[in-house]
């Protein structure tokens, strides 16, 4: 079965990449001594808790120290700190894979907890909301404009769009965000400076939703402005190339109405290459998300990355590197599934 085997192979390849990346992360951590630091911190954390609970029962300070030392030694053995880092590789790799990385050094969840996995997971949705809406809007604008321009090649719109596309390549996404804040938040006071909700957020769920929407306007605009030029240009080019294909002409010769030709013979055939461009732009979307969230203080994974780097919270940095890779790989796989569904030529 062509479809299933193609998908399976692809899933396998991507999973391998993920695992290799995790190993790569772990090796770097080991070789630079960072994993030692982290595990040591986890040991110290446990010892401290032990000390607090034991202090209530064991009154003799020497006895207390002895018990704690024993436990500490046990813990160091358990976490593998007594052995060199490369022996710990598989264990560390598993830890990263399952986000079992203990507590963050200084960062906290929205509710005050500090387990790394919690901190990371609660922000995942925010990032997904931002990126998905920006992508959909860019795609819609890109497709509509791209198709329109493709039918009027060489016109003014065409020239403008290719210049804009070239320029938008040179403009840093995050700088657009900064400028938007200066103009629309500082100067014109139309939109908030950042964040997800106003403080305090409205209690009514409907108003809360609108509040979030209002806060999302500038960040989404930033992402859209940065990528729409490319969308329009690539759509236009792809549609143009396909419109000149023989089978389009043949379809007209068969007396098929122009509307149908446009839909089924141009757009439907253009869908796979356009999708390819989306896949290629996926890494850029992730970078864009990280930078835009930082600028707008949007509480997603991107902003978390910036905060973690700022306060040197290694564990969170590691967790995020992994999560981003995971998100990238999953998104890529889903898109490739879509591609295989759309284009029968790649199935084997």
């Amino acid at each position, binding site marked *: 079965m062509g479809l299933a085997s193609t998908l399976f192979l692809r899933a396998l*390849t*991507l999973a391998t*990449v993920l695992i*290799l*990346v995790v190993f790569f*992360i772990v090796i*770097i*951590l080991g070789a*630079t001594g*960072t994993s030692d630091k982290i595990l040591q911190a986890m040991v110290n954390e446990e010892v401290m808790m032990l000390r607090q609970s034991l202090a209530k029962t064991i009154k003799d300070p020497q006895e207390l120290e002895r018990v704690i030392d024993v436990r500490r030694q046990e813990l160091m053995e358990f976490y593998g700190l007594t052995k060199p880092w490369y022996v710990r590789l598989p264990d560390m790799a598993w830890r990263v894979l399952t986000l079992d990385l203990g507590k963050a050094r200084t960062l906290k969840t929205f509710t005050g907890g500090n387990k790394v996995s919690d901190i990371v997971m609660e922000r995942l949705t925010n990032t997904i909301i931002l990126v998905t809406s920006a992508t959909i809007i860019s795609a819609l604008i890109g497709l509509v404009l791209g198709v329109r321009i493709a039918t009027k090649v060489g016109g003014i719109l065409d020239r403008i769009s290719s210049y804009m596309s*070239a*320029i938008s*390549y*040179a*403009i*840093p996404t*995050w*700088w657009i965000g*900064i*400028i938007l*804040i*200066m103009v629309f*938040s*500082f*100067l014109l006071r139309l939109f908030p*400076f950042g964040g997800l909700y106003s403080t305090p957020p409205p209690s009514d769920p409907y108003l809360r939703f609108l509040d979030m929407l209002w806060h999302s306007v500038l960040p989404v605009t930033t992402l859209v402005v940065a990528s729409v030029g490319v969308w329009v240009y690539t759509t236009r080019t792809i549609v143009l190339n396909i419109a000149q294909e023989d089978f389009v002409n043949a379809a007209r010769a068969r007396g098929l109405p122009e509307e149908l030709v446009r839909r089924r013979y141009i757009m439907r055939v253009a869908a796979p290459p356009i999708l390819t461009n989306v896949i290629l732009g*996926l*890494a850029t979307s*992730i*970078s864009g998300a*990280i*930078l835009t969230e*930082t*600028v707008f203080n949007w509480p997603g994974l991107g902003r978390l*990355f*910036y905060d973690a*780097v*700022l306060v040197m919270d*290694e564990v969170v*940095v*590691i967790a*995020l*590197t992994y999560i*981003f*890779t995971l998100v*990238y*790989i999953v998104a*890529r796989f889903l898109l490739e599934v879509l591609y295989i569904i759309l284009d029968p030529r790649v199935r084997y």
Partner: protein
Amino acid sequence: MPVRFNETLQEFWRLKVSKVGVAFLTILVFLSIYVVTSYPLDFGVRYWNNPAYWADYPKSAPPSWVNYFSDQKLPEHYVLVYDKPSDIMSTESGRTLLYIFRLDFQADKPPTFISFTLENLTYYSDPPTARLNVKRPDGKDIKLYEYIAPAPYAGESPPYMRFYDIPKRISITGDMSVASALARFLLREYNVSIRPSEVNSIGQHTIVFSVPGPNKEFYVLKGEYIFTISIDTYDPRDNIGKVKLVIGGNVYGFMGTDSLGRDLSIGLLFGFPIALFIGIVTSTITTLLGAGLGIVGGYVGGKVDEVIQRVADFVNNIPLLPLLIFLAFILGQNIWILVFLLVAFGWPTLTIIVRSMVLQLKSSQFIEAAISLGASRLWIMFRHIFPQVAPFVFAQLIFFTPTFILLEAALSFLGLGDPTIPTWGQILEYGFRSGGIYVGLWWWIIPPGLLIIWTAITFVLIALGMEPVVNPRLRRMK
């Protein structure tokens, strides 16, 4: 080959984008050369990141030309320096050196600080005393500050040298004794009762330059101010090298200052050679590595090719920025590590394309001819194959440069740049982190971005101009 090169050069020059691009590039190169030859190479560490160096600069000040556009004149920044006294008075105990600073103040807002600095003091008997006085346009005199130089230490013999290594900077602003003196002045001259702590919050500099209103507001007093620093010395050999008075302004320079008082025009200038360096060096290494691996893989084939392909595939399958952030974070913030990382992530795209080009070339006849002549593989790869892919590779080099410049800017913005080197991304990072965008410090935020864009566009234009050269199908038919 020379003929072809000439022809391609002509083809390139024909387009308007190429001309504009090359013009921009020339400007960038000239500015970079100027910076590299006029500034020390450790400028970053020694001056830029050294807050003491910028102590006498106004903080977060817009450029001085904004005064042309607003009716409210903001005060300029005045730095008045003397290395010889304006006058010397003889007294019974010695000489008094007088340094007289005249200032015609016409701004609509008071200055932002007042400070004076003494440098290179040598004395032989009793330590000199320095006093700061101001005579205001309304005729009123204020004794602002009195300072006695440090006495000789145990075991020290004359001449006593002070403030040679580190100049003595005395800030009038924030000084409580000055605040008390001003409070007394206000009560005496204007019958305004105000506590020294209030003087301190309003700012000693403000009070000096204004007239009080009935409700403890202060209105700027315009006119000529005469500041006198008098130094009483007790030995005719006593000497002071430099006396500086700074009346802090609210505007400064060509591009303004940041919140540390750093002159942004210098910081921005320094960014030019850095940006070019990062962009071109990284791009060159990446291109050579990527093309090299592509040629070797494509031509040699077999296991070598497999390995190269797998690695390239793997790198292509990982998201760039998160891994870059991770590695920069763990491995450290150093410009060379950055270059290394960018190269490590950049080579696969080129390798894959070059490899497929080489695969096509491999079966062409002139290669077969070369093989039959007994040429070695290395020879063929470099003398026959490389020249064929060279135009494309060169175009990619140009095209990659803005990418790397932008990537470095992004990483710097996130705080992962090399802190010893001022780049535009770093200037923006600091501006963002200190909240500059929320208070509208546009001169800090807009220029670095524009410069990044301008540099990137320069290379994009040149790359666009090279496209027909590289892609003969796009050449115009004669």
